[in-house]
């Protein structure tokens, strides 16, 4: 039996949970989906359409708002009672926050941020290392259950099969001691309204560490103007204040899918790639021929961007 732990907030399902369902389905065992919350929710109902054995609604009033302590208690109890062979998650910020602690509480092996899995005995998980420059096949050791998280986008949400009949939803009362929950969460908020909606841009020029200093942003801006593109950046550029945070692409910024994405001096760390790999045509200009950005690029130029970009601006104006 494979468990998939889905993610919901205020009853709304995180779309990335369907990816975990799709990942689990490739492993050949019956799949049970677990939704953690204060009671049945629209998320539970939505997931019952999946081609799975059943949906467990793991319920306690202390699970209404996410805290790692309450989630770990509730899921450790359920997993110990039901003994699945494998428990699958999507590698979201929330999963990063509690899954390692859950594995430690259960004293069971965990592999994180996987990009694929080959079913077998044992299952062989694929994950990236060294900033995406190499991949590794890893196996988990020790007694079941094992835990695995899959990178966002590693599986397609629409690959998760639907069944003709809704799966049974089983409510399970979670064992949570509210006094043992030490985190006291406040309501989530947004810092500022996003002024630029980069998701609507047809063309984007994005800059990374390779731009080297703030004064060179002007060069990227000239290229963006010549292409009729919006200017965006990877996280380090926005952290340095060279471009506003609202122009950040990646897991902590915006997700975009333009017709053209031109990456200047961007190495292609996964935190950036998850935000732009849906682009139709990707161009990478980078000095490092081994930069992971070339893995997903349609066109690649290995060169100094400070030489190529002025030439590009000139060529576009011809």
């Amino acid at each position, binding site marked *: 039996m494979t468990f998939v732990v889905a993610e919901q907030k205020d009853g709304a399902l995180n779309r990335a949970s369907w990816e975990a369902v799709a990942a689990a389905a490739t492993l050949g065992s019956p799949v049970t989906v677990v939704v953690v919350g204060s009671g049945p929710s629209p998320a539970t109902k939505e997931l019952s359409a999946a081609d799975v054995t059943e949906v467990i609604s793991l319920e306690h009033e202390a699970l209404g708002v996410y*805290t*790692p302590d309450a989630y770990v208690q509730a899921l450790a109890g359920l997993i110990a009672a039901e003994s699945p062979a494998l428990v699958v998650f999507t590698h979201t910020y929330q999963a*990063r*926050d*509690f899954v*390692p*602690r859950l594995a*430690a*509480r259960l004293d069971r092996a*965990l592999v*994180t*941020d996987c990009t694929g899995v080959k079913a077998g005995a044992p299952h*062989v998980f694929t994950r*990236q*290392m*060294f900033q*995406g*420059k*190499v*991949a*590794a*096949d*890893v*196996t*988990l*050791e020790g007694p079941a259950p094992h835990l695995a998280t899959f990178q966002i986008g590693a599986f397609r949400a629409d690959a998760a099969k639907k069944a003709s009949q809704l799966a049974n939803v089983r409510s399970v009362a979670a064992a949570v001691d509210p006094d043992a929950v*030490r*985190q*006291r969460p406040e309501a989530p908020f*947004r*810092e500022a309204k*996003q002024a630029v909606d980069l998701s609507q841009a*047809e*063309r984007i020029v994005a800059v990374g560490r390779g731009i080297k200093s703030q004064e060179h942003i002007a060069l990227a801006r000239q290229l963006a103007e010549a*292409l009729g593109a919006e200017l965006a950046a990877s996280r380090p550029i*926005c*952290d*340095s204040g060279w471009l506003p945070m609202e122009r950040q692409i990646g*897991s*902590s910024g915006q997700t975009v899918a333009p017709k053209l994405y031109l990456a200047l001096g961007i190495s292609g760390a996964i935190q950036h790639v998850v935000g732009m790999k849906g682009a*139709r*045509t*990707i*161009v*990478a200009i980078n000095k490092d021929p*081994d930069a992971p950005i*070339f*893995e997903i*690029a*349609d*066109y*690649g*130029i290995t*060169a100094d961007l400070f*030489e190529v970009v*002025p*030439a*590009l601006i*000139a*060529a576009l104006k011809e």
Partner: protein
Amino acid sequence: MKIAVCVKQVVTREWQVRINDAKTWVRDQDATWELNEPDAFALEEGLRLREQHGGDVVVVSAGPARVTQVLREALARGADRAIHAAGDHLASADGFATADALATALADEKPDLVLTGLQSDDQGLAQVGVVLAEKLGIPHSTIIMEITVQSGSAPGLRVKRELEGGWFQWMAMPLPALLTIQSGINQLRYATLKGIMAAKKKEIRSVAVTPPEKPRQTIRSVYVPEKAKATRRISGSPAEAAKTLVAALRDEARVIS
């Protein structure tokens, strides 16, 4: 306040990764090493908290003998003393073995606050901090942007967590606690000459760590990933490459007019 900061030594970003003959790890005998960048932000946050609230910053690293380099670097930036959780098995250990080693090193320290980076630039597991919190029996929170400390009879933290898609959330918890720090939240200080000289006199205590009986994770093979896409590599002089690319974007990809 006693603050422990866990740091890892990783190969430099510039080092060209080469795979070892057994294809189980990288050939890092000739690598250059540096402080894992996400951990540098945790160290900086620890130093700032000490400046605000007083106390000590103890920096801890798990690994073979070479990791004393990053401990010395952290001492030069201003940490008060260092602990080396020493074991050759820690060079490519899984997150549980690393967390075990750090917990062993911290066993007698009883820090009020433990800080780690978000994840490492080598394995990138994003497990160690959270597993360590469980082993130490203290609450944790991850991807932290801002920390406020409440002292007094019930010492605690109020921290700003980053959620996905531009959302944030404040979370309160009692001390002692462990936090993993979001990269980029502060401006890093670098070691001054004075700091480097002072670091030579600071203590690095070594704690021997025995390998776990059985690892939790085995790396079966390491390889260069297969390309998901056929990339057309454009060569030539900058002017030639630029012309070729513009033509391709106009006529082949049809994404510019």
